[in-house]
């Protein structure tokens, strides 16, 4: 047997070990997040009408265009194929009021990608969750637009042309300013006022189950986050389920706090990060100037990540109890 007919030594590639990969890529992870967000996106369109679809498209378009434009300015290959800008645009859209003028999601997306990500050095370098940076910028710059909520039409009445943009308040507003508790079933299904992708707990949990089953996100962050909120709600004398289902907690706990880049990489750090998000969310909800605190809770905890990681670094093997950090 002469092996030389099939052997071209110059065709043999050399590379350091290992020579295997598990096949999971940045792109596949980002696409999994997009898939997981589809139920919430569809629920948003169902409840809030075609405008919600346009808001979503504007935010995604703004994010992709900004990402591509910045890559071009920097003379780098266009990086939108990795899917990260798509996720940022989609997440931003899902935490905007459904009826906003379409320039608003575009402005938010530009800020999210350009300032929230590119200014820090691009993918992997940003300290804060870019979508939440975009949202925080919009809340600070356009407070009225960002707190004008649309009534959920629900069964798709808008298709019959009976849709009119009745404005309403979110369940957290209603509790805070009017002492009204929204029924839990409405909260769970999503027939309440709020950001276009945050209202349906059911849709968000479906996607979360997908992400957990696929191993895309670590259970520690949402578990610690939601658990802390439930315990504190109980301590404050409010039905824990209300605080779990209301506002953007589900969206934040499963899709925002689990952002890889701006979160903690250590298992213990993820628990601490989740608990911190829960405490801050409840402090803002109960005592803060805004009825909802998820955005700022996560952004504040993002800033604490280096500190958290330092104190939660794993104990290295054979280190006599010493951590693997310095």
């Amino acid at each position, binding site marked *: 047997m002469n092996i030389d007919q099939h052997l071209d030594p110059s065709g043999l590639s050399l590379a350091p*070990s290992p020579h*295997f990969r598990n096949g999971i890529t940045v792109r596949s992870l980002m696409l999994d997040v997009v898939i997981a967000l589809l139920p919430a996106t569809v629920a948003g369109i169902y409840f809030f009408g075609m405008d919600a679809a346009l808001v979503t498209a504007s935010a995604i378009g703004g994010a992709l265009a900004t990402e591509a434009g910045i890559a071009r300015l920097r003379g780098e290959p266009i990086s939108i194929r990795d899917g990260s800008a798509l996720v940022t645009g989609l997440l931003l859209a899902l935490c905007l009021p459904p009826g906003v003028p379409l320039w608003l999601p575009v402005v938010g997306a530009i800020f999210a990608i350009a300032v929230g990500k590119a200014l820090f050095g691009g993918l992997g370098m940003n300290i804060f969750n870019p979508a939440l940076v975009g949202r925080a910028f919009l809340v600070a710059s356009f407070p009225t637009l960002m707190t004008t909520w649309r009534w959920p039409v629900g069964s798709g009445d808008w298709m019959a042309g009976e849709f009119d943009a009745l404005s309403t308040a979110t369940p957290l507003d209603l509790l805070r300013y009017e002492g009204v508790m929204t029924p839990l079933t409405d909260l769970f299904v999503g027939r309440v006022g709020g950001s276009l992708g945050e209202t349906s707990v059911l849709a968000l949990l479906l996607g979360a189950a997908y992400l957990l089953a696929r191993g895309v996100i670590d259970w520690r962050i949402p578990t610690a986050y939601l658990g802390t909120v439930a315990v504190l709600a109980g301590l404050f004398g409010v039905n824990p389920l209300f605080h779990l289902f209301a506002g953007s907690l589900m969206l934040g706990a499963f899709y925002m706090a689990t952002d890889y880049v701006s979160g903690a990489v250590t298992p213990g750090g993820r628990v601490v990060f989740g608990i911190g998000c829960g405490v801050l969310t409840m402090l803002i909800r109960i005592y803060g100037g805004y009825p909802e605190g998820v955005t700022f809770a996560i952004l504040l905890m993002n800033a604490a990540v280096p500190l958290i990681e330092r104190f939660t670094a794993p104990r290295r093997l*054979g280190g006599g109890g010493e951590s693997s950090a310095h």
Partner: protein
Amino acid sequence: MTAKTFRGGVHPPEFKELSHGHRIETLPAPERAVIPMIQHMGAPCEPTVQEGEEVDLGQVVGDIDAFVSSPVHASVSGVVESITESILPDGRKSPAVVIAADGSDRIADTVAPAGELDRLTPDEIRQAVRSAGIVGMGGAAFPAHVKYSPPPDSDVSIDTVIINGCECEPFLTCDHRVMLERAGEVIFGLRVIMRACGAERGIIGVEDNKPDAIEVLREEIGDAPLEVVPLQTKYPEGAEKQMILAITGREVPSGGLPLHVGVVVNNVSTSVAIARAIHTGMPCIERVVTVSGDVVENPKNLAVRVGTPIRNLLEAVGGFSEPPARIISGGPMMGLAIYDVDMPIVKASSGVVALSERLIPSPDEQPCIRCGRCVDVCPSFLMPLYLDVYPDESALDYHPLDCIECGSCVYACPANRQILARIRLAKSEAAARQR
């Protein structure tokens, strides 16, 4: 009984079914054997024979007067054709003795049984193991006799000997076949090592994807006070420190050796080589090598003389079904990509694996997205992403010297970062600074 394990690790596809059912076949001795002087960790040997000299099978052809070293032997009888330079799979160059075989396999008169095990002293066993040129055949090639010799100034005593039958590398099945077909020698080798170390506890650790090997070994042990411990099928279950942790709960201290926690670990093939050295006096001149891969025509487990060109093994398996994109000496997780199939098989060569383009990763790296998978899988509980920043100085603060180079972090990395390549560089700088 639940299989033991450690925290972390990965589950690469095994591909063992390609070759695990194939009995060990003996590859004919090569016409020309190339015996490198570096086949072990420690001081390189120097040739002890001259060009033109006649040598017998099992005769020493290279040695050096150093404790951490191991002699090399003629794997064929014949005439020393030349003393030349050979390139090793890791790219280093090594002097090598080239022997033109005469085909007679005339055995050297130094090859003689060591005697009854019960009458041999630990020192005599260590001497016999050194003389036979036995090194760790799992891949590390650490001289075996050194493992059985605690530093004289320490109060270390070895109480446990573990034989490593994990074989957690994908594709490789040579240790599996050795356990099935040479179980008696595996057990006898374990007894020899226990006697050399004065250890009371003898354990064979086997991944639970080899239930037949576990059964055969248990049958062979019978009522003797030795144990077979099933371990979870997971990479790198066979890594020395991780295996010691899984089986004994002891942590080898950072920078330390297994004997610092009273343990010696040897591979099953090493155990067989030791059994032969005691039984017959034949030194380490042969080993079992798995030749496999998705483009290999008929994957096999071959008993091969040390010094046989890799080419001969590839011919024995019928060559390739399509051109390989990469040929690896060892397994795909820790093995070395080679570019020259005329390199010789050495004592630590466990496999030759030829892969198609479909199985090898793209060379393109993306930015780290801090997903934390490397932290989750690292079996040394390090934070590989912060080592990946090397040559940034901060990498040196994250304990690169504790990395065992298993590559689990790279395997799991969605950004395809060459984390381990950077850790190796960080390790050499950290080691240089320590000196």
